[in-house]
């Protein structure tokens, strides 16, 4: 057997390439990512189409079209990417691959960072591409019914890049929960619980439930994709709250990931 001639070293770039190879090596990852993309694009086509054919006598339909409605489901569809992220890491614990991952990147934190970078990168691209396609096509569909909306450049950038940022940040919550919980089923259920179920529970017990709900990841983060007037927090404070959730959970995950036996 020949020997390796070059001197090699492990670094974040290598770890990230490794995670990318692992990501696209499993068809199920590509299917789930593609499905998420397709859902957002489908919504972007259906919303203006439904607007054109709406029942004009209905009070709910009596509003002017606006660009944010094109991507108004991205907030909840993002749950799929958070689940995909949780699966990426917990599947390694189930299959035993995590041992090889940690043998290759024994400082561990770069391995977790690489995973987060890959899923966040994929999510960012899904968000930017789906929102870009949606906002490009929607005006043509609306124009078919004689409708239109105004969209200035700064709002267009907020909605397109914001979709990417929102999905990337939400996916990091999934990676963090996966690394903390390590079990496939438990981490998927926890992701769903934190993102979808927990936010509505305070409403059952408290008159301030609606207030509390605003500070959960999906609700706060979605403000970045909504009309600026939707909530007094505003788009960027909303996104900041999501980012604090993601970074807080990721920091906890990093401490545990570094310390625990594999």
């Amino acid at each position, binding site marked *: 057997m020949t020997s*390796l001639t070059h001197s090699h*070293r492990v670094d974040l770039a*290598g770890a990230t390439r490794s995670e990318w190879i692992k990501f696209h*090596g499993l068809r199920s990852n590509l299917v789930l990512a593609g499905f998420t993309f397709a859902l957002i694009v489908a919504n972007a086509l259906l919303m203006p189409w439904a607007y054109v054919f709406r029942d004009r006598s209905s009070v709910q339909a009596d509003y002017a079209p606006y660009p944010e409605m094109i991507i108004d489901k991205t907030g909840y569809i993002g749950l799929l990417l958070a689940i995909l992220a949780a699966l990426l890491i917990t599947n*390694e614990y189930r299959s035993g691959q995590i041992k090889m991952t940690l043998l290759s990147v024994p400082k*561990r934190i770069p391995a977790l960072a690489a995973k987060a970078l890959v899923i966040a990168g994929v999510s960012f691209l899904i968000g930017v591409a789906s929102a870009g396609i949606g906002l490009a096509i929607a005006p043509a569909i609306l124009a078919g019914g004689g409708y239109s909306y105004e969209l200035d450049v700064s709002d267009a950038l907020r909605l397109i890049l914001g979709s990417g940022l929102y999905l990337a940040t939400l996916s990091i919550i999934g990676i963090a929960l996966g690394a903390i919980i390590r079990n496939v089923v438990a981490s998927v259920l926890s992701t769903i619980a934190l993102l979808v179920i927990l936010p509505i529970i305070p409403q059952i017990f408290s008159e301030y439930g609606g207030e509390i709900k605003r500070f959960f990841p999906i609700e706060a983060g979605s403000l970045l994709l909504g009309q600026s007037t939707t909530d007094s927090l505003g788009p960027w404070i909303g996104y900041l709250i999501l980012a604090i959730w993601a970074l807080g959970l990721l920091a906890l995950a990093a401490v545990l990931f570094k310390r*625990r036996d594999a």
Partner: protein
Amino acid sequence: MSIEVLGLSKQYGDHFAVKDATFRVEPGKVTGFLGPNGAGKSTTMRSIVGLDRPTAGEALIDGQRYAAQTAPLQRVGALLDAKAAHKSRTAWNYLSSIAATHHIPRSRVEEVLDATGLTSVARRKVGGFSLGMGQRLGIAAALLGDPATLILDEPVNGLDPEGVTWVRTLLRTLADEGRTVFLSSHLLSELALIADHVIIIGRGQILADSPISALTEGKEQRVRIRTSQAAEFSNRVAAGGVTVTSTERDVLEIEGLTAEHIAETARDAGILLVELTPVKHTLEDAYNEITRDAVEYASTTR
């Protein structure tokens, strides 16, 4: 290129999986790590490469902890768990992902696939691999970085006879190239064929650390005799420093006397011996003696 384990302990609750283990694995040799199941072999190996965090002590590879190495895969290749890949992944994807962490070129992935005989199944999903193929894949992963040290936990488990011979030849070659080869097994017979040096562990403690040939050295030879006058002969030879045991009717095993001396004694006493066999102290005997008190899960039939 040596592995140094210094006062390593790993505690789970109040149970010590490994207790104050200290030993050194030298390059250029195949060192066997032998012990009954549950003796702490895997925990020790996992601690050496940082998968487990020791409760006390440390393990150094060339004077540095595994995690502190700049290119860990070039220092140490480890096989700790065969089939450590998602079952829907191909062998090629699995090895490529590992190689990528160290910027190891794809030509090297091809080389280790070739060396382990997996080239023809490289694009197949590892879920369909047999235990033996999984083991080969694990060895391929361990060889990826062309490492100076190999740590292999039960590497021949599940291999067919041809595969066992292949592993044996491979490990010998690697050791002859000056690499450090450290492999565990719970089977003495297997290690006796591969290892130059053996470290024996039982109940988490290091019980022996010596060249395999030295295990049987210095042990009294026994002589097995068969005679119808066993009781009488037993009295004749009984003296200080001589032990006589009887394993079956008319058979005595005598320790402390040479075969010649026993034959002379029988002749002088007019006792007919129908069998006189020097019994070599086997590796098996030495191992059983060392681990007798340390068998974690002794079977009741023994």
